[in-house]
């Protein structure tokens, strides 16, 4: 069907062009589409998929991780870039960013954690429901970075909570963050219902 584009945009002429478009649309829509059940391949109806419960649950977990953002420094902007349209965290089912720990699965610590903030970070980690994972993004979250010797900075978030994936960089690019999320996926697939946090080997 050819779409008629009006070349002149006076109201009268665009109304006439719209009328032509509608009339040609009506002329083309004479027959009905048949029910999809009739023209889909019959083999699809006969399929039965066999799998284990562990695999099915791990598959579901892996593809709908809700991240809890904990952006305390400049690495947070790389995470914001990663969730934007260019790098697109939605591809990994992570587009629903939660601000409540009770609805989140993975905590992304992006930035320096001071000892005064550490109590809040640990409280939020404790409020997350099991199974839960933690990604430490950037040099400061991994080891304290340049502020390691400081009087107020936690030298690595693994002092206050278990960390599953470390993403190095200062700050890491969004590609590095996506690679870290891929490694987390690989870890989740290894887990079972009873023990979702099996280590990656």
């Amino acid at each position: 069907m050819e779409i008629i584009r009006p070349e002149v945009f006076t109201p009268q002429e665009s109304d006439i062009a719209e009328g032509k478009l509608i009339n040609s649309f009506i002329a083309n829509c004479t027959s009905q589409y048949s029910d999809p059940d009739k023209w889909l391949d019959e083999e699809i109806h006969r399929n039965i998929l066999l799998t284990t419960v562990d695999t099915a649950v791990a598959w579901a977990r892996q593809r709908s991780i809700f991240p809890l953002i904990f952006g305390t420094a400049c690495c947070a902007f790389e995470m914001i870039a990663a969730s934007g349209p260019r790098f697109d965290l939605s591809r990994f089912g992570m587009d629903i960013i939660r601000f409540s720990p009770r609805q989140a699965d993975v905590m992304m610590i992006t930035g320096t954690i001071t000892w005064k903030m550490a109590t809040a970070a640990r409280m939020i980690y404790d409020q997350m429901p099991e199974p839960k994972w933690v990604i430490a993004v950037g040099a400061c979250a991994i080891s304290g970075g340049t502020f390691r010797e400081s009087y107020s900075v936690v030298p690595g978030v693994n002092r206050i909570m278990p960390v599953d994936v470390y993403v190095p960089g200062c700050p890491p690019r969004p590609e590095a963050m996506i690679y870290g999320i891929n490694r987390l996926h690989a870890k989740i697939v290894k887990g079972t219902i009873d023990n979702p946090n099996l280590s990656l080997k």
Partner: protein
Amino acid sequence: MTVALNGEDTGKKIAEAIPGSVVSGDKNSLIVESKSLLQVAEYLKNTPGMEFDYLTVVTAVDFMEYFEVVYRLVSMKNNQSLMLKTRVFDRVNPTIPSVTGLWRAAYYQEREIFDLFGIKFEGHPYLKRLLLWEGFEGYPLRRDYL
């Protein structure tokens, strides 16, 4: 453009009004005695021709022999600025008067200086730690901290 006042000329005017308050003054800054800081601040705020109604920053520097507390004042009305400094020589229990009553902007910055340098501001309405937690030992921005 805001005109920076010459500390030497301003110091002479202040020395006439409040004798014994000025330590020294040069092109950039004016150093006053910590005892008469509040008097000088009131003079700078209320005298016609000065009228410093806006305090942009309060900060402190540790020179080991003494602490220097720096006030940067701006007059919106006369379009001029002044760097006012005062020195505290006591390292164990440094105390200077608070200017929060004159300029409300000093409230949080004096609390921050109290937290990180241990300088007490007499007359501050709520002198409490701002950044560090209760029970933290030492004053991290002093040069002999580590």
